[in-house]
């Protein structure tokens, strides 16, 4: 009876997760959707407390309070600019949680052989159980170490350059083979476990080490420019890890939720790949894109062409008398924390009758949709934000495109230069607008390490300096123009 009720509670939770995710389809209902999901989680947790006839309520509460407290603290402290790192850390923790649960399950089988006083009916350890436990350990640990490498790259603690060494691909392949070997050995020894402890336990421990290394080896050769893809992919892995744990515990709630998350991460991965016109395989083995800092300090000329510098005053005049201004934000804006100043400038221009729109490239920033969040933080109404396909046709009738710290997503070389590493990537066609103003610190190329020919166009003007200072200067000049 109780078991049926608990299963029903899991069904309710799973349904609420789906409804909650569906509500995320519109900004108006999204918050409610997130709340529904969290209620679903509460239902699942409470139901589980009944299943397990808690023997150590104090420890259990302690664990939840410690973990929950840390989580709440992180959620409150994190800057919107660091959201990709936050998501990366949480992905990693979700992964390692799966590893812990699968390991605990293994340890339980071990203790069952010594102590038969279990509250749960012991299912014999067989091949499917062995494989699901190992799968949970493998996916969970790869997610963990891979996520933390990604976090290191996102925060600049690890170089954003693709890191590679001789024999690395071979090592990766060897590790993958070793992982498969663990599965084979455990399958062969499953029926003897737990009486015959050694092979299974050593394989599980070995797999943790292999998977840990594999996670590092998989992410470290991927360049910083591809981080949106990596973050999305790891998100998918963390879901798969949860689903694998569900198989281990024979728990529907975990399987359904894990599958939902896995699918969601996979879709985002695909969207990010499409946005860069590259295949997932290409991203994973590519090694494309590096740090701004590591790129060559570019000169002021390219093929003998020179750039036009401009002043805040000129930009202010140009924008004040424009009919339409399109702002193209990039990671440079995020780094300078200039989103609030940008909104202020936009408000001022709008008050003077200028139409201001924001053009958002799908891979602007460090994770899918990152730029939208930053602008939302600065209270930019989301109906002023336009996705690439919706705004690209409008640049012909745009007077000024204001590019704030974006590089690769506006580089026309992607359209015609077959030699360029970003060739074929869909870009924002800002070069079609009457004037282009680029706010940038220096002539350094962007995350992909490619110099941007847009900067050398006749209708492009460069305004060097910190994006925040430049925007403030322009805003002050606009105010003067009464």
């Amino acid at each position, binding site marked *: 009876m109780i078991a049926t009720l608990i299963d029903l509670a899991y069904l309710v939770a799973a349904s609420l997760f789906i409804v909650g995710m569906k509500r995320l389809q519109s*900004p108006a209902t*999204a918050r409610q959707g997130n709340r529904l999901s969290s209620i679903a989680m509460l239902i*699942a947790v409470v139901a589980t407390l009944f299943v397990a006839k808690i023997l150590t309520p104090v420890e259990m509460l302690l664990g939840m309070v410690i*973990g929950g407290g840390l989580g709440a603290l992180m959620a409150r402290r994190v800057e919107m600019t660091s959201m990709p790192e936050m998501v990366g850390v949480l992905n990693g923790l979700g992964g390692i949680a799966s590893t812990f649960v699968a390991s605990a399950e293994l340890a339980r089988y071990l203790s069952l052989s010594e102590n038969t006083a279990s509250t749960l009916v012991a299912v014999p350890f067989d091949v499917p159980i062995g494989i699901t436990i190992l799968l949970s350990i493998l996916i969970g640990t790869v997610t963990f170490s891979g996520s933390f490498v990604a976090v290191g790259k996102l925060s600049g603690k690890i170089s954003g350059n693709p890191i590679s060494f001789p024999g690395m691909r071979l090592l990766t392949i060897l590790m993958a083979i070793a992982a498969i070997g663990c599965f084979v050995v455990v399958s062969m020894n499953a029926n003897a476990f737990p009486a015959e402890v050694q092979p299974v336990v050593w394989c599980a421990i070995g797999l943790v080490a292999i998977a840990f290394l594999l996670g590092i080896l998989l992410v470290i050769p991927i360049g910083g420019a591809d981080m949106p893809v990596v973050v999305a992919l790891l998100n998918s892995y963390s879901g798969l890890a*949860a689903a694998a744990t569900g198989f281990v*515990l024979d728990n529907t709630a975990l399987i359904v939720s894990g599958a939902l998350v896995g699918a969601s991460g996979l879709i*985002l991965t695909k969207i990010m790949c499409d946005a860069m016109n590259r295949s997932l395989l290409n991203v994973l083995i590519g090694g494309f894109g590096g740090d701004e800092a590591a790129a060559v300090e570019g000169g002021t000329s390219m093929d003998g062409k020179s750039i036009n510098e401009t002043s805040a005053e000129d930009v202010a005049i140009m924008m004040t008398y424009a009919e339409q201004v399109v702002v193209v934000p990039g990671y440079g804006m995020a780094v300078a924390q200039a989103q609030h100043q940008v909104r202020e400038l936009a408000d001022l221009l709008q008050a003077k009758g200028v139409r201001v729109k924001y053009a*958002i490239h799908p891979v602007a920033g460090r994770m899918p949709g990152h730029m939208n969040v930053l602008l939302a933080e600065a209270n930019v109404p989301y109906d002023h934000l336009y996705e690439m396909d919706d705004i690209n046709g409008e640049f012909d009738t745009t007077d000024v495109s204001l590019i704030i710290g974006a590089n690769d997503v506006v580089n026309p070389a992607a359209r015609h230069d077959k030699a360029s590493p970003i060739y074929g990537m869909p870009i924002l066609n800002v070069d079609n607008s009457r004037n282009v103003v680029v706010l940038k610190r220096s002539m350094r190329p962007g995350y992909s390490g490619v110099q941007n020919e847009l900067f050398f166009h006749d209708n492009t003007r460069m305004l060097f300096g910190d994006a925040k200072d430049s925007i403030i200067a322009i805003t002050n000049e606009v105010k003067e123009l009464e």
Partner: protein
Amino acid sequence: MLENLIVFVLASFIGFEVISKVPQTLHTPLMSGTNAISGITIVGALMAAAMVGGDWAKWLGFAALIVAAINVVGGFLVTDRMLQMFKKKTTEKSS
């Protein structure tokens, strides 16, 4: 095992259907929100921690509980924080 596999595949299809319609604007909250959902592992952690087993099983379960709780609470709260910003403007605009 087969039943679980069926559930997994069907749930994946539902996931694809539901998620593919989420606009780009909400991709970051979507990601942190689904991430919190993947913290459903907390259910597994609770089960592992509550079972009578050796010390190893208990401590591994306890460790799982802590990290999963970080994932769940941190994930939902940070998603809410983001979505709050999206929400605020609709009210501002309508006023």
